[in-house]
């Protein structure tokens, strides 16, 4: 069985290699090949899962050592895999949702001339993501970590001729690199502290070093997680990442890659358990982001950006739970999985809507679509009910548990974190109801398709005739079937995991689990969660359901305007980092040209008249080159001869 682990990664990697190097001959079959290899990886995952489930809880972890990667004195980095229940959960999520999205993309990307390359990148992403969750040490995890970043970069910028897409791709990579600094430093700290960075030895030895060291490592891991999972203060790239094709937003920027930060923290649980300060920082980042994303989500008129705000916010919940320690790890992962279903489903639904609406993304120009796209409406609606935590659906179980665990942290912190999580649930209900109402209900506010030359934001690859009114229609089966499957997961996933505490028993041997004791009864927490959800839905209905939605966005309050601009974080980045950086580099270019060059030349002048000669050369006296040249050669030859003579 162990030998199958490498195949999990190898199948999509082979797909990427063949599709990207294969050339135009493969254009006709590329998408089928890519999908088949993703599915193959899923099948291998299921086989491994069946095998794992058959063993008793304590003996489920298996590993595969492939080869020694960087053999240097005192430094051991291996290409070796570890498959335990936590990795298994991710493997099934990644390959399962990944395969569905491959299928969906066959339809979605049908008219794109570079579809083969798109599938190559998707396969590359799967391979890197699987490497990330299967690595048995932090350095190999880093390879997967950057690999998914590369795939994300390539896919956000897939329509490279759009300057906005190219800029968004670069931004995502750069912001992630800041996070990578954190991961690098964390690995270096582990190396100097433990002499290794393999999961097993590091996580077993946490008791032998100081809390300060563990806090430092924990904070650096948190920085890494902030980058990859779009948490404050490194969240700014995710909204722009929506420039990528919608299946990419569903797979990478909702269901899988952006949750890698949660994986990193839960995987490093032993480090955080022994470093309460780092844990506190994790919960604060989670709490701040869950509000930040939710507020941004309320103000966006672009359906994908509203969903992106929502993703940020939901990952905030997961990070918050992961910061709570053993009372939260299991629920962080459970929410991660259910979120993977419903958010992927929501994005695919959004893609389906765009498909039928001339690629319009502005929800103010939708309205009344439920009659025209019934399957999309129902599947999107089920995803909607799941994310707002409608009782009985997936999100209800997983989010409620996180809110409960937040209260259970105890003390003032517990009340604050629990309160924030509750407030977030209300805002979630608000913005998601807003999306639902603006898209599928109300009057039809459709607008003629813009001229693609004037409005470069239109997704290319789909035929749009300028000036034509949209003819909303249901998407083909190849797109709706994945949506239906994900809707089923959104409805039943949470209940399936929660009945008999299945998910807790499954993950407990890896992540450890402690039962939290909230200061108020669990029932009261659940009641309040449902109550705030109803309030959120009600408020949204008052504003967007009862009243007509204006096609042009009203000016809005100060907060709305700030939220539309991602709470001004980009403006801050632009003024401080971009402008400041430009000034810095420009002045340095000047300094290098005049000062450093000048001083070095000048110093040399005092020693050998170098500067004078150089100045003359600048003036273009051709003969002086020759003189200098001969001078140099003469010195050389003279020196050699002199040595011989001595």
């Amino acid at each position, binding site marked *: 069985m162990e030998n199958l682990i490498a195949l999990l990664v190898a199948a999509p990697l082979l797909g990427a290699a063949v599709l*990207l190097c294969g050339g135009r001959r493969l254009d006709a079959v590329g998408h089928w090949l890519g999908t088949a290899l993703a599915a193959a990886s899923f099948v291998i995952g299921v086989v491994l899962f069946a095998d794992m489930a058959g063993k008793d809880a304590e003996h489920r972890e298996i590993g595969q050592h492939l*080869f*020694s*990667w*960087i*053999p*240097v*004195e*005192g*430094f051991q980095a291996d290409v070796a895999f570890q498959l335990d229940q936590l990795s298994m959960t991710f493997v099934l999520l990644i390959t399962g949702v990944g395969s569905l999205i491959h299928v969906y993309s066959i339809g979605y990307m049908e008219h794109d001339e570079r579809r083969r390359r798109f599938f190559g990148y998707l396969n590359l992403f799967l391979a890197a993501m699987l490497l990330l969750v299967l690595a048995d040490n932090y*350095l190999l995890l*880093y*390879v997967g970590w950057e*690999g998914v970043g*590369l795939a994300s970069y390539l896919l956000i910028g897939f329509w*490279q*001729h759009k*300057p906005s897409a*190219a800029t968004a791709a670069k931004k995502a*990579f*750069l912001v992630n690199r*800041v996070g*990578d*600094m954190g991961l*690098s*430093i964390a690995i*270096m700290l582990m*190396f*100097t*502290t*433990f*002499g*290794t960075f393999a999961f097993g*030895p590091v996580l*077993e*030895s946490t008791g*032998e*070093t100081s809390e300060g060291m563990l806090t430092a490592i924990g904070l650096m891991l948190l920085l890494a997680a902030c980058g990859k999972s779009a948490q404050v203060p490194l969240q700014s790239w995710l909204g722009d990442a929506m420039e990528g094709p919608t299946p990419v937003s569903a797979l990478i920027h909702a269901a899988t890659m952006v949750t890698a930060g949660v994986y990193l923290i839960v995987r490093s649980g032993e480090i955080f358990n022994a470093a309460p300060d780092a844990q506190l920082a994790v919960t604060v980042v989670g709490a701040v982001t869950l509000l930040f994303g939710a507020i941004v989500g309320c103000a966006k008129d672009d359906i994908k950006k509203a969903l992106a705000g929502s993703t940020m916010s939901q990952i905030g919940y997961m990070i918050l739970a992961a910061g709570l320690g053993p009372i939260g790890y299991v629920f962080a992962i459970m929410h991660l999985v259910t979120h993977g279903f419903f958010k992927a489903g929501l994005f695919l639904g959004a893609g389906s809507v765009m498909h039928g609406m001339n690629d319009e993304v502005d929800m103010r120009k939708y309205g009344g679509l439920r009659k025209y796209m019934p399957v999309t409406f129902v599947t999107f609606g089920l995803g909607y009910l799941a994310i707002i935590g409608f009782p009985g659906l997936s999100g209800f179980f997983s989010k409620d548990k996180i809110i409960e665990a937040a209260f259970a942290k105890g003390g003032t912190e517990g009340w604050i974190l629990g309160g924030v999580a509750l407030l977030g649930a209300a805002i979630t209900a608000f913005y998601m109801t807003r999306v639902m109402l603006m898209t599928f209900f109300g009057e039809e506010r459709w607008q003629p398709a813009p001229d693609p030359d004037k409005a470069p934001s239109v997704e290319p690859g789909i035929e749009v005739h300028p000036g034509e009114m949209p003819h909303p229609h249901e998407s083909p089966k190849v797109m709706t079937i994945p949506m239906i499957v994900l809707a089923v997961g959104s409805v039943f996933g949470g209940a399936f995991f929660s009945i008999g505490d299945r998910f807790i028993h499954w993950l407990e041997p890896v992540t450890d689990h402690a039962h939290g004791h909230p200061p108020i009864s669990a029932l009261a927490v659940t009641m309040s969660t449902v109550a705030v959800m109803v309030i959120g839905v009600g408020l949204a209905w008052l504003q967007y359901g009862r009243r007509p939605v204006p096609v042009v966005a009203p000016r809005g309050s100060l907060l709305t305007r700030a939220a539309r601009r991602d709470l001004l974080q980009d403006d801050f980045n632009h003024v401080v980092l971009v402008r400041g950086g430009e000034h810095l*580099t*420009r002045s*340095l270019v000047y300094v*290098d040209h005049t000062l*450093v060059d000048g*001083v*070095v030349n000048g110093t*040399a002048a005092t*020693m050998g008249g170098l500067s004078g*000669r*150089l100045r003359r*050369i600048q003036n273009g006296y*051709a003969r002086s*080159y020759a003189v*200098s*040249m001969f001078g*140099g*050669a003469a010195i*050389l030859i003279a020196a*050699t001869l002199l*040595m*011989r003579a001595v």
Partner: protein
Amino acid sequence: MSFLLTATAALPALGAIATAAVPAAKRNAAKWLALIVSLATLVLAAIVLVRFDPGGDRYQLTESHAWIKDFGVRYELGVDGIAVALIALTALLIPFIILAGWHDADPLETGNKRWRPTQGFFALILAVEAMVIISFEATDVFLFYIFFEAMLIPMYFLIGGFGDRAHEHGEEAASTQRSYAAVKFLLYNLAGGLIMLAAVIGFYVVAGHFSLQTIAENGVPEMATSTERWLFLGFFFAFAVKAPLWPLHTWLPNAMQESTAPVAVLITAVVDKVGTFAMLRFCLQLFPEASKWATPAILVLALISIIYGALLAVGQRDMKRLVAYASISHFGFIIMGIFAMTSQGQSGATLYMVNHGISTAALMLVAGFLISRRGSRLIADYGGVQKVAPVLAGTFLIGGLATLSLPGLAPFVSEFLVLVGTFARYPVIGIIATLGIVLAALYTLVLYQRTMTGPVKAEVEGMPDLRVRELVVVAPLVVLLIFLGVYPKPVTDIVNPAVKQTLSDVQKQDPKPEVEAAK
């Protein structure tokens, strides 16, 4: 006693003479001759690689003959793992450089103002190869010095004589700037060399011989602390100019900007490596105490190089200058790794020399192909190239990703080793150096974005994709970048024992981890 090392250096030297002697009418014959000679040299280098036993003596395949008896100068060759790795790199890159520069020295179609000796171009490249290889092989300080200096002469002609054809200000201005760059290169390096010459003589006065092999057997000669420090500085200065280290770097952007892309690769990927190699071989081995004494200052300069080079790369408008400043940043990493004096740092630094050679070659040669199509080095003159030439754009991106040390590609392994090796002894410097990975992503991706993405510029339309000859150059480099990123063991196995030796020369041990973790 074998003549393998002599042969490896002599073959390209003889090849250079033969190539230069080809009559002007048979330009193509000269090219093919040079290519064949460089490939044969690669075969010899491969034999060196195979014959070298990583577990064996420190210096292997040694040759030793008296040369200038009165003065104790010997013709003495021998290679350790570090030298073998770098000889292999050199022999590997030269055929690609020749192939990439296939048309760079063709006579100008119009005007015919300047005579461009095609055979000369290729002969000079082979001459540089020969001198670089023998510099890596020489275990006699004076023998090393001769070739360390002599390689300036062919380099001078390569920089000054053959530039990019098109130039925004016309051929006249281009010629002036080229000459300026060439002379600046020469004078900087000669200045370094002269100071080194003084130190070489000084070393002889103290030691009475020039032989590294003798030192390996009998230990470092006794010398007063101040003498050792002065001599160390003399050697180090020359190597720091060549590497180059901040603030002695300003010749490199000029030289790389003005020369053709293959020559720029020759400078930064091959010739400059002699500088960092010599730091490892001569500075550390001849002057261990002084090396340790100077370490803090050198580390700070290396750190400045890393950050400063990267920041300046961000600010460049000329893509060849950008690559030059990126290289300055990378040389900072190499020097930092050497002077961190840890196994990871020095193995990483050696690996870095190899990987930087390959990655810069990939990036710079593709940039050269791009420049030859449009006739401009300015980044702003491009845009949307990926739409018209996807393979060119793809390989350019891979070269760029290697330059920013993407995990999975070779430079990541070496950069991480250098960082971790530095961090183990100097945490603050290690952490600041980590900033380099963010800046590297910035200059690389901005370069890619501005040239390759966005709407297709009118001047770029109709630009042909990579030709077969260009693909033959780039594809093997890309394969190597991936292979050595996944499986660097073949190189580390050769390098590790030599690093262990060097560390024992300076009597440094790796810092122990705080906790002996359960393995």
